[in-house]
């Protein structure tokens, strides 16, 4: 680890402002669960005044969504996210990693294993999972009691055919533009329809598309869990793969993966590893774009949408994914695209940019807190009176669908890209 990393959080002056914005603190109301507390723990560890041998360190440093709401509000730009990730590497060293996360890291590290496990899942699907329909978004429940996920939890569905299997490595276009797609595991294996929508839009715009088959998991979930060396290996593979691919932009419809590649890869090589790959990581970073950003700023999509209608009128509200909004800085673009659709009535909900409580493995490790945070989000969505909630992230989609389901709401949950595609085709949502 590079000593410079501590400069990213040592600007903290312990003012306490972060207490007023942290979604976890709002539920827990105690100092171990807020940015100021997290930063203090890593600082005291580095000073040698403290060690993480106490089991509590797992909870204190695990229970952070890495939503960066605190970073955004901190007048001193203290990077609590880096503090927490760094601290987690120390916690892992002492307490090890929970078995399910080890398996997750193993499975995610190799595309073949991942493909196989999903295929197995598919094979035994009806035995292990129960499909749940007529909910805010189709998903599955686990049939058997198990130590990792609760039986009533609404999970991602498993697609019959993965996105990467479904599409060829390149799709021609007449336009001079050329993009590559990094699809991300959730869309590849589960919400494949989001990937379909992305390809349809690109086809409509006549843009040439490259879909490299050898892309591997971005490593985000592994990195956020503090298993940085494992994430680094994946980062190197993706960097080497994409540097060879000529494309104006690399579109990633999954803000968590986009953040991992755009923001975290350079950090991995700047702070946690030798920086031989730093320049390459930075180069790749520059090309990574969220589709809504690319479509709004680099194409004519907004004008095309102005003449398009959904089959039926809908009122829609929008939830800002933390990674899309804060890490990638994309806030207005998706809203503008949605508003362009003629018979779509856009309603801004209260606190649209507050975290939904998913936080990746956070929702597995701390389900109760995660659901409390989700409940606030669901309430704001319901109060908006919209019939559909749109967001740009699979993690948010899953969490919001579950939170709405618990509230017995039938408001449907869609990805921005899906709504745009439906409007282009004149279909219903």
């Amino acid at each position, binding site marked *: 680890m590079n000593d410079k990393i501590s400069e990213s959080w040592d*600007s903290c*002056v*312990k*003012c*306490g*402002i972060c*207490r*007023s914005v942290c979604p976890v603190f709002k539920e827990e*109301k*105690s*100092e*171990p669960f807020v940015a100021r*507390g997290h930063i*203090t*723990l890593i600082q*005291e560890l580095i000073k040698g*005044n*403290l060690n*993480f041998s*106490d089991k*509590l*360190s797992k909870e*204190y440093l695990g229970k952070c969504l890495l939503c960066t709401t605190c970073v955004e509000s901190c*007048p*001193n*730009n203290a990077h609590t996210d880096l503090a927490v990730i760094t601290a987690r590497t120390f916690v892992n060293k002492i307490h090890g990693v929970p078995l399910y996360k080890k398996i997750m890291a193993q499975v995610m590290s190799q595309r073949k294993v991942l493909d196989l496990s999903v295929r197995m899942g598919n094979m035994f699907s009806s035995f292990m999972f129960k499909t749940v329909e007529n909910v805010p978004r189709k998903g599955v429940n686990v049939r058997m009691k198990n130590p990792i996920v609760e039986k009533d939890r609404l999970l991602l569905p498993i697609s019959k055919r993965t996105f990467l299997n479904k599409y060829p490595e390149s799709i021609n276009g007449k336009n001079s533009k050329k993009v590559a797609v990094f699809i991300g595991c959730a869309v590849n294996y589960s919400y494949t329809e989001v990937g379909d929508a992305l390809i349809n839009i690109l086809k409509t715009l006549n843009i040439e598309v490259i879909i490299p088959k050898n892309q591997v998991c971005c490593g985000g979930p592994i990195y956020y869990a503090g298993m940085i060396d494992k994430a680094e290996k994946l980062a190197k593979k993706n960097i080497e793969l994409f540097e060879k691919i000529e494309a104006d932009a690399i579109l990633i419809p999954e803000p968590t993966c986009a953040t991992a590649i755009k923001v975290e890869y350079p950090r991995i090589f700047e702070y946690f590893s030798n920086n031989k790959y730093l320049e390459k990581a930075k180069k790749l970073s520059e090309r990574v774009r969220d589709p809504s950003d690319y479509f709004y700023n680099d194409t004519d999509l907004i004008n095309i949408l102005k003449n398009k209608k959904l089959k039926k009128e809908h009122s829609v509200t929008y939830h800002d994914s933390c990674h899309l909004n804060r890490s990638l800085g994309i806030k207005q673009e998706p809203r503008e695209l949605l508003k362009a659709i003629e018979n779509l009535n856009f309603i801004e909900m209260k606190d649209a940019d507050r975290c939904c409580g998913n936080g990746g493995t956070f929702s597995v490790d701390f389900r109760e807190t995660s659901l409390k945070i989700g409940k606030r989000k669901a309430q704001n969505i319901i109060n908006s009176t919209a019939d559909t909630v749109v967001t740009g992230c699979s993690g948010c989609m899953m969490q919001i669908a579950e939170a709405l389901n618990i509230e017995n709401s039938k408001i449907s949950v869609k990805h921005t890209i899906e709504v745009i595609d439906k409007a282009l085709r004149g279909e219903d949502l």
Partner: protein
Amino acid sequence: MYKNKVYKKIKSLLGKRCLNDKLSKVQYSYDATQKMYSPDIVALVENTNEVSEILKIANKYKVPIVPRGWGSGFSGGALNIEGGICLSLEKMDKIVEFDKDNLMVWVEAGLVNYDLQEFLKPYGLFFPPDPSSWKFSTIGGNIAENAGGPRAVKYGVTKNWVNGLEIVLADGTVLNVGSKNIKDVAGYNITDLIIGSEGTLAVVTKALLRVHPISDDKKTIQIVFNGIRAAAEMVNNILNSKIIPTSIEFVDKDAIKTVDDALNVGFPKDAEAILIIEIDGGIYEVEENSKKIKRLCEKDKSIIAFRVAKNEKEADEIWIARRSISPTLKRIADGKLNEDIVVPRSKLPDMIEKTQEIAKKHNLYIVSFGHAGDGNIHTNIMYHTDNNKEIEAAKKAMDEIFSFCLKLGGSITGEHGVGITKQDYLEKQVGSDNIKLFKNIKKAFDPKNILNPHKMRL
């Protein structure tokens, strides 16, 4: 050995909410002064009864006990400088009773000031005390420090809005003081004695607060000056023309620069000082007063920009810049002596000029900003912690600023309190007889000196 016994007793009372592991103790060892003193036990209480039981235990075993809100204090009041129990009230955050007819509300002490404002807003009401830290400080902390904010010019400070309290004494006795009566002169005014006592006399568990209707209209005005004295004099000019603004805030050159660096607000580059003025009242009254202020400013040649916020959003932008100064100062240097001196309003120009003179003499950055409307200035003497010469110079500068402030009839602290950071100067200001009286009062309330001991010279 007693520690173990005390821990066991509190543990049996609070269960999981009583902590004594190293990690948790570190989390409750600091406040916004950035100093660290570890408590031996952290007690996360949820109701008055628990507070009372814990005080009985602390009193019996003579263990120091320090009440704590959200730890945003600037004078070290919430620090367990001698270990003991950290009594954290953050989980006591409920609104107990809203008495709309009497315009009063009973709240638990751990409620955050801003959460109360949010509760009151739909009723067209507000709680006037508005420390810059209102989003991250508790009513209990506001009461203990008698916190004040920008609106103090017109609406006063915390003490003007508290009608009664539920307090717990050192021996665990739960007491109600004050009442809902606007007029009530039966006996000593214990409520006012507790306000500003920094957790040394009793623990506040609930407060009966007065609230006020939100005015029909308000306007925020920003005036930029090319000279600092002119800004200070404008404050008196405005007040002398029979306008009482809600607030008159003052920001000096270095503060303007740090905030601009941090937030990119785009202040004029040759700005030497900024006044932020807010006026409220009926629609007609606000319009009239804003015109009056504009006329006053037109005559003043040192004004380089004058702006009235057109809407809520613009007003917020102006205020965010002001509220962000204090926490962004670290950009200038990593160390600061943060003082909140106050002088009679008419002496403000003298005090500000003297501060600049002292800064020049010691070759230091001294950033001044604050509540000019009530003579309260936040003086931040900046230094680098790895530079011993600067540290020495900063201390000298602070002595000189305090001496001059007292000479003008001012006070060493307007709102942050004495705590540990200012106790060495207290006697100089109030005199030894006052200190003797303080000690006697403390003894009457807390004979064993367990409540927040060794703060405020007690």
